[in-house]
């Protein structure tokens, strides 16, 4: 609801954002017998300041809303930042074992774009969308079938415009309840069951600090591709051959379990990092819009006071000159 109000107010003060806001606002508050919105009685000489007062009130309200949103984001950020930083321990062992292979060349690339459900959080969603589009372009070719899996409402809206045919699955309203591993592993299971893949590329914004986040790709390979790479013995994956594999009935089964577990862990970290970046970005976006509202308010106050003073001065001049006319 707050957002709708904000959007409405935004439209209303749009003319104020023109280069010369005072000049633009001033003529409106001058008396005009033609304008119906100012019900100045016929013959009245005072200048109505009603319009400016109304606008000041609405700008003040906007500022209150953005300040409140900033506070909410700040308190959510603190809680989620600890969890995001702790969850980094989940993928680090996998990198140590399997290495990171973002440039691997496979047929079925699935790009998992992680974004937020709500807006008003700066550019985090457009950066991850841009990165995903770039990845899709890099990985498309005559015999390749790249696909999108979109997590979150905002990336869906942006991607559906021009790449509808590539979108395979969309998931939203993930962050309605606090993120937990069980929920994310169910989501990961859903993706694995419904989408055929050779490599999953997860695009998210890694939290760096409150004001900065890094668009990141993490790659999860399917067990078959891992097997193929191990045989070709290239890079870090070639070393996997020297590991003894315990558990499961076959080597393939263990590798399958490993890949699925890796995906759920990486996904868990990705959604947490993204939620954390979202809060950080929202905090700074709301901070700058509160500041902006403050500036608008200052300019309006100046206009208001000037007009009021001009009216008083005019009245005084009239009274004095009237009195001096009587005397003389």
């Amino acid at each position, binding site marked *: 609801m707050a957002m709708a109000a904000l959007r409405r107010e935004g439209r209303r003060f749009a003319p104020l954002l023109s280069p010369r806001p005072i000049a633009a606002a001033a003529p409106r508050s001058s008396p005009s017998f033609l304008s119906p919105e100012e019900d100045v009685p016929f013959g009245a000489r005072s200048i109505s300041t009603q319009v400016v007062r109304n606008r000041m009130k609405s700008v003040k309200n906007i500022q209150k809303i953005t300040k409140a949103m900033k506070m909410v984001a700040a308190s959510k950020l603190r809680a989620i930042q600890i969890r995001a930083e702790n969850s980094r321990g989940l993928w680090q*062992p996998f990198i140590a*074992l399997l290495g990171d292979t973002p440039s691997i060349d496979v047929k079925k690339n699935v790009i998992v774009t992680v974004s937020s459900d709500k807006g008003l959080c700066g550019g985090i969603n457009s950066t991850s969308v841009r990165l995903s589009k770039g990845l899709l372009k890099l990985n498309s070719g005559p015999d390749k079938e790249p696909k999108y899996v979109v997590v979150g409402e905002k990336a869906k809206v942006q991607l559906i415009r021009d790449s509808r045919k590539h979108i395979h699955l969309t998931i939203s309203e993930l962050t309605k309840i606090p993120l937990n591993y069980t929920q994310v592993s169910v989501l990961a299971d859903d993706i694995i069951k419904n989408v055929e893949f050779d490599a999953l590329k997860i695009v998210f914004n890694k939290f760096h600090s409150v004001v900065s986040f890094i668009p990141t790709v993490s790659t999860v390979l399917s067990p078959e591709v891992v097997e193929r790479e191990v045989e070709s013995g290239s890079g870090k994956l070639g070393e996997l051959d020297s*590991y003894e594999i315990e558990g*499961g009935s076959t080597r393939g089964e*263990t590798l399958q379990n*490993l890949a699925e577990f890796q995906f759920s862990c990486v996904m868990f970290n990705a959604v947490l990092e993204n939620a954390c970046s979202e809060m950080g970005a929202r905090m700074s976006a709301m901070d700058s819009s509160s500041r902006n509202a403050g500036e608008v308010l200052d300019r309006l106050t100046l206009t208001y006071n000037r007009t009021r003073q001009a009216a008083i001065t005019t009245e005084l001049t009239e009274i004095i000159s009237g009195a001096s006319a009587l005397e003389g």
Partner: protein
Amino acid sequence: MVDVVIVPATRGQLGVLPGHVATIAELKPGIMSVHDGNGVTKYFVSSGFAFVHANSFADIIAVEAVPLDRIDASLVQKGLAEFTQKVNSASTDLEKAEAQIGVDVQSALNSP
């Protein structure tokens, strides 16, 4: 730096000492014990993987890991009884499998 780690692999306990051969092991619910110079710390791990690297490093990834002294023994007994009863009363294979997992977890907690 620790001396020995014993992890609950799917095919029985796996003791890892420095210089252990490089291994990837799947974990089952059970007790992981970490032995260092001062004594033994025991944790309950729900599931996950253990990677033992050739350079005497080991990574253990678990979905949940809880120090054993934070677990209430009486609740474990109660849970064990509850799930044992469920195994006997289960009508479908799915229910039976779910109850069996419950029994496995609770008895793993009960064992030390």
